[in-house]
């Protein structure tokens, strides 16, 4: 799970989280007893419809202000370390 979540855990953390998450999942078994076969799922509390706005130009964030918050920026873009071609 840590790999999927892009986290790296120390051996101590693995022990700690195994107990922590185990306790929660044990509790989750409570719902096993419920008959939910005919119950539809709810993903959201209010009825959601696609919300459209008029296709007009509105205010946007200032690019230099946004890029000033980035850990690294270059040529009006966010700069990141290499994505491809690095030996594992």
């Amino acid at each position: 799970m840590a790999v999927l979540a892009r986290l790296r855990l120390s051996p101590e953390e693995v022990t700690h989280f195994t107990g922590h998450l185990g306790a929660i999942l044990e509790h989750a078994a409570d719902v096993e007893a419920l008959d939910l076969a005919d119950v539809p799922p709810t993903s959201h509390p209010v009825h959601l419809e696609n919300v459209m706005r008029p296709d007009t130009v509105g205010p946007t964030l200032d690019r230099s202000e946004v890029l000033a918050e980035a850990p690294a920026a270059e040529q009006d873009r966010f700069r990141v370390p290499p994505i491809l071609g690095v030996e594992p």
Partner: protein
Amino acid sequence: MEIAARVRSGEWSAVDVLEGHLEAISAREGEIHAFNLVMVDEAREAAAAVDSAVASGRDPGPLAGVPVALKDNMCTRGVPTTCSSRILDGWRPPYDATVVTRAVEAGAVVIGKTNLDEFAMGSSTEHSAFGPTLNPHDTTRVPGGSSGGSAAAVAAGFSSVALGSDTGGSIRQPAALCGVVGVKPTYGLVSRYGLVAFASSLDQIGPFAGSVADAALMLEVIGGHDPMDSTSIPRPAPDISAHLDRGVEGMRIGLITELLEGVDPDVAARVHEAAETLSAAGAVIDEVSVPATLYGLTAYYLIAPAEASSNLARFDGVRYGLRVDGPDTAEMMIRTRSAGFGDEVKARIMLGTFALSAGYYEAFYGKAQKVRTLVRREFGAAYADHDLLLSPTSPSVAFPLGAKADPMSMYMCDVCTLPSNLSGEAAMSVPFGSGAHGLPVGVQVLAPAMGEVEMFRAAAVLEAGAPSESATEEGRS
């Protein structure tokens, strides 16, 4: 609101009001740690602007000169917004949250950003990267959470009102533990634009205040449709203040049976007294069973982490906040996230990743969503013959720091509050006397979606009828 009325009339100056609150902060903030940041210069500037508006005959608005504290997960342009996490170290948002814009346009003076459990994940404000906030009534105890800083700021007189966010009880539970009013509005009544997302289908912003009337005014200012939030209900905020003193004559109010079992006896006793107070004011009280509230806890602790694991994927060291460099982008992201997130956040991200992963999705997340339907159905059935429901806000009064080390015992703090987040309906906590150790007890009033006016009417009756030996006075004597 007395401050706004007197500032608007020119009787008081907003600068003097602010200085009074800054003095209260200097006196006790070192001990309480309600704030991540006190915005002294910005607040002085804003207060002076309010005074000059009054002097030149312009009305600054319904919150004229009222100091307001903001939970530090609400974006403030150019002012650090941390979510009490290392991963947002140094970040200054390029825009204001809608609630901030609306409060400022109404004349409020933003006094600071308050401490929280990291990314609002917790019920004690102990899980902050910057250390815990302490309860102003007893500094060996927690203020509740996750909006513990906002609750403590109002309880300690650091600000008149505050804003928090409530995903499973994060406004109502700290309000109860600190002896102030706290409101979780109907989902969609208050814009989430500029609120750093924890669990998007559950999060809602709401006010803390020292009185029911002040909370109502604050909600009227921040509520109403916002085109910047696609889940915002396309209606204006309800007029609550005008109806506050209409009482509860003839209202049908149900005590939720399941939420009175398993709570501490001092808390249960106050809830029964609150029911008697409402009954004496003409409401018809009975008990109503909502069994799904008990399964709600399990559903909540799968749904909220699932949504969080997705929402917090954006903190990857690319666009803002912390970056720990690495030889390639994937390694940079892993190092950044491992260094930037605290334990509770990592636990919930992993739990959510698990609940959404192939092979487990149906058994965990899918099932939790079905339980959510049961919660909604059972509340719907209860509201078919009740106007409002009543329960404790928290199973106990404020507990000592470090008392809930086991994760399930901490999660149980939210058992009374999180059903309203699952259903998307309104609920608020009103102080009602004191319990063990003379600490405040909160009573929760629950209402169907958009039932805020009726909910506040009942809250006003409870406020007027609360036991006179108020915990606030005991705590300070």
